């Protein structure tokens, strides 16, 4: 589904990603771990199409198609979703209206009519129950005044609504207490299927106890320095990132 080939990318001549290779197939859950500044969030943004970053070498393929000339919205229409570490506040636009716009724009891109209002409401009800979201919450302005946990839960709610093929969860666990973490992880797990894939980006192993990955990759200085199965995450937790740093120097 996703093929990242020798990806070099940076901002204003400053290289952040130094040759990343990563392949994700349908049904798989991958985790990318790494210390601060290793390029985790940059990788997430580059896959989602953030224009600020320039790809200097290599590239990204999604479903066999090169994404180089593809805008973020087109990537969304193809089924790529990025859950933000810091979701943006949009005053005056309710969660419901925002979702309507997002869903209908995607449908428009696929040549479909707007989703009928009753179907939309049913979908919103269904998915908000999945994330244990209160009705009142849906009429509030998007992310405005939301707590950290509410923002993250809202991100996963959006993911549930948009049903992406590839969901990238960027530090979804940061700022969550254990109850919120459980709800969010539970929501994500219910959305897992043999046809979609998830890329979890995290600093800590904690989230991976709930969203169990098939593969774990360790990112350091813009490169994947180690890959393995879920046991690698535990090892990292135990030994800390210095272990990887030292090993990669050797």
């Amino acid at each position: 589904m996703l093929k990242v080939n020798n990806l070099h990318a940076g901002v204003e001549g400053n290289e952040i990603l130094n040759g990343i290779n990563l392949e994700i197939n349908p049904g798989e859950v991958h985790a990318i771990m790494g210390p601060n500044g290793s390029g985790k969030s940059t990788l997430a943004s580059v896959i989602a199409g953030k224009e600020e970053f320039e790809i200097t070498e290599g590239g990204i393929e999604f479903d066999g198609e090169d994404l180089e000339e593809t805008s973020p919205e087109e990537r969304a229409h193809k089924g790529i979703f990025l859950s933000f570490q810091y979701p943006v506040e949009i005053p005056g636009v309710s969660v419901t209206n925002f979702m309507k716009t997002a869903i209908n724009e995607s449908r428009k891109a696929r040549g479909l009519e707007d989703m009928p209002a009753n179907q939309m409401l049913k979908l919103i009800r269904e998915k908000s129950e999945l994330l244990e979201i209160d009705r009142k919450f849906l009429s509030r302005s998007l992310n405005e005044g939301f707590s950290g946990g509410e923002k993250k839960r809202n991100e996963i709610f959006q993911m549930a609504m948009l049903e992406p093929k590839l969901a990238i969860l960027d530090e979804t666990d940061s700022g969550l207490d254990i109850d919120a973490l459980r709800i969010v992880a539970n929501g994500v797990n219910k959305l897992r299927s043999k046809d979609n894939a998830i890329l979890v980006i995290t600093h800590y192993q904690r989230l991976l106890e709930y969203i169990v990955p098939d593969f774990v990759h360790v990112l350091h200085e813009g490169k994947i320095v180690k890959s393995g199965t879920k046991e690698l995450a535990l090892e990292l937790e135990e030994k800390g990132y210095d272990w990887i740093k030292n090993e990669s120097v050797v």
Partner: protein
Amino acid sequence: MDLKDKLVSSFLAFENNVDVDHPVHDIRSEAIKNFELRGFPNKKQEAWKYTSLNALKKIDFSIFPKQINALEYKDVKRYFLHEIDTYKIVFIDGVYSSFLSETTHDGVDICLMSAALSKPMYKQIIDVYFNKVASKEESLTTLNTAFSKEGAYIYIPKNKVPKKPIEILHFATGNEASLLLQPRNLIIAEENAELQIIERHQSLTSNEILTNAVTEIFAAKNAIVDYYKVQNDLKNASLIDNTYISQKNNSTVKVHTFSFGGKLTRNNLNYYQNGEYIDSTMKGVTILGEKQHVDHHTLVHHREPNCESHQDYKGIYGEKSVGVFNGKIIVDKIAQKTNAFQQNNNILISDKATINTKPQLEIFADDVKCSHGCTIGQLDEEALFYLQTRGIPKKEAAALLMYAFANNVLESVRIPELKMRINRLIANKLGVQLGFDL
């Protein structure tokens, strides 16, 4: 002959059509003398530094329409807030249209300035209020005073609330090659009275129109006045809108100004607080493109203790448009415990657009809370990216962000249908369909 000379000499012709024995005529005569002395403002004056009237002064405006023009309701319906029932005071090329209007004398007076200036029953009120808060020095105001004859006259007696909002509409047909209009409004809300006004100036052709309007508003004790100015005119229509407000104890006057169109618009909005516990609120959303120019000049004069003023103006400037915000707050020495807030936030969406913003605070009291802030920025790239990753195209995403930016100004619009209308105007102005009614 230049426009000033033409105006001064037209005053003699004007006198043939008004009652020169009425006391108001003395006020007019004084005013024309003042205008003759001062002439049009120019860029050397601080208050007009960023707004030039030179191009307008070169146009040979007709001062009086040569004929009476009519309009069919169906052709102008869209400019009315037709979704709800309203009182309507409608003028076509400066002349009252009884056909399009709906006035009343049922407990309140919602009618015409010409009637108020000619009928004896209004004389007492005219003596007390006419030209009492409008400036006697500002030259464009005195020009309007000199030619004051027609406009809206609204008198809401003590404890009365009109059944519905009032619309004041000025249409310009363009049947004249170029026309100068000078409406004069007088609005009085007595103790505990409450009213809502929606005002719009609308040109219907590409001919040149210049409107120099003066509105005086008097809010007595506990009165509440909500005034909405919808400025979405065609590209050869210019407006100089002078509003003077006098408030007494515990009164609330809110003016919302929505500026989306026109060639040159200058809003002079002046509040004078003549009592305690007054709330003066002015809010604005300005969205401009092309070479449009909008200049908001506000003044709040805090003359008594324990009052508040709130100013919140948001501007979005594209293409080669120019915006000006100048907010002056004067707090007299006696006006302790004043709370005065002023906010002006702007987004420039083009490299060629300009905004000049200037707070002007003159504070002579020592126990006050005054704050002001102005920002000039661009759209937040991270926010744009966020919306795009949800499948919303860049243009729509930008519009959504601009809408969000202007949103808190709309929250205080108390007529839901008007709010919807403004939302739609904003969406149109931003050139998007957002899949839901904003």
